């Protein structure tokens, strides 16, 4: 049950990890600004175009008159198109609770006895968090953080050589998991 909780925490990490996108959305503006900068060059282009039309002066006049308006609408469409492109690489792959739980259960990187031993230690740590959220001191969050980091390090050291992807996902979720354990409301929600 506690393992489910931790897995839930890991999965939640994925949900919590979703917030980063907003942060990544902040960068897009700069890209838009950058996109806007390149826009100016097209304007000079029309100016350069006139020289060619020297052969046919009348046409350029009509074209020049239409060119400015046409150039203006062209710039806006380009900017929105570039924004999503920039957001795609920045967005981290969402961690799915169910798949993460399955991956932890199915991974062959950890033996059965080791998994059970880890579960015991996770249960013990979760028990200490329960004590903390019940209002008892010791343990303080300052006491619990090293224990949390050590346990996560054990898990990562067991996974990193044989299941790098899972190790990476768990490591990425470290702060989110801590957030769930340390926050009373989130802890109660996910431990029930």
């Amino acid at each position, binding site marked *: 049950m506690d393992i489910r909780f931790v897995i839930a925490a890991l999965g939640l990490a994925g949900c919590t990890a979703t917030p980063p996108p907003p942060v990544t959305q902040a960068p897009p503006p700069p890209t838009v600004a950058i996109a806007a900068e390149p826009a100016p060059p097209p304007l000079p282009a029309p100016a350069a175009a006139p020289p060619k039309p020297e052969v046919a002066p009348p046409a350029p006049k009509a074209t020049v008159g239409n060119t400015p308006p046409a150039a203006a609408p062209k710039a806006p469409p380009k900017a929105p198109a570039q924004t999503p492109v920039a957001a795609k690489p920045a967005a981290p792959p969402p961690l799915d609770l169910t798949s993460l739980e399955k991956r932890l259960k199915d991974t062959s990187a*950890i*033996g059965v*006895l*080791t998994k*059970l*031993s*880890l579960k*015991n230690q996770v249960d013990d740590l979760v028990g200490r968090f329960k004590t903390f959220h019940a209002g008892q001191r010791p343990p303080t969050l300052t006491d619990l953080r090293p224990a949390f980091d050590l346990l996560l390090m054990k898990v990562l050291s*067991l996974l990193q050589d044989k299941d790098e992807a899972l190790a990476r996902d768990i490591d990425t979720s470290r702060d989110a998991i801590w957030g769930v354990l340390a926050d009373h409301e989130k802890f109660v929600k996910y431990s029930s």
Partner: protein
Amino acid sequence: MRIALVAATLAATAAFAAADPKQKQDLAAVIALQGKPCGEVVSYTVQGENDFLATCKDKNRYRVYVKDGRVVVEKK
């Protein structure tokens, strides 16, 4: 004759069990998780279901077994 055959069978079984590298790694990991010195499990014998006697490279020997859903590591 029969006794010799049974002894040979038991010895062969034990030898086979002790040769499973995954089980050795599992035992070594469990011992390490408990913070006990071992380094590497060189051999082990199966004493029962989820009950092992592991011998480490540094000559330490541990009984690793499951009791009430908890993995226990006892130095022998």
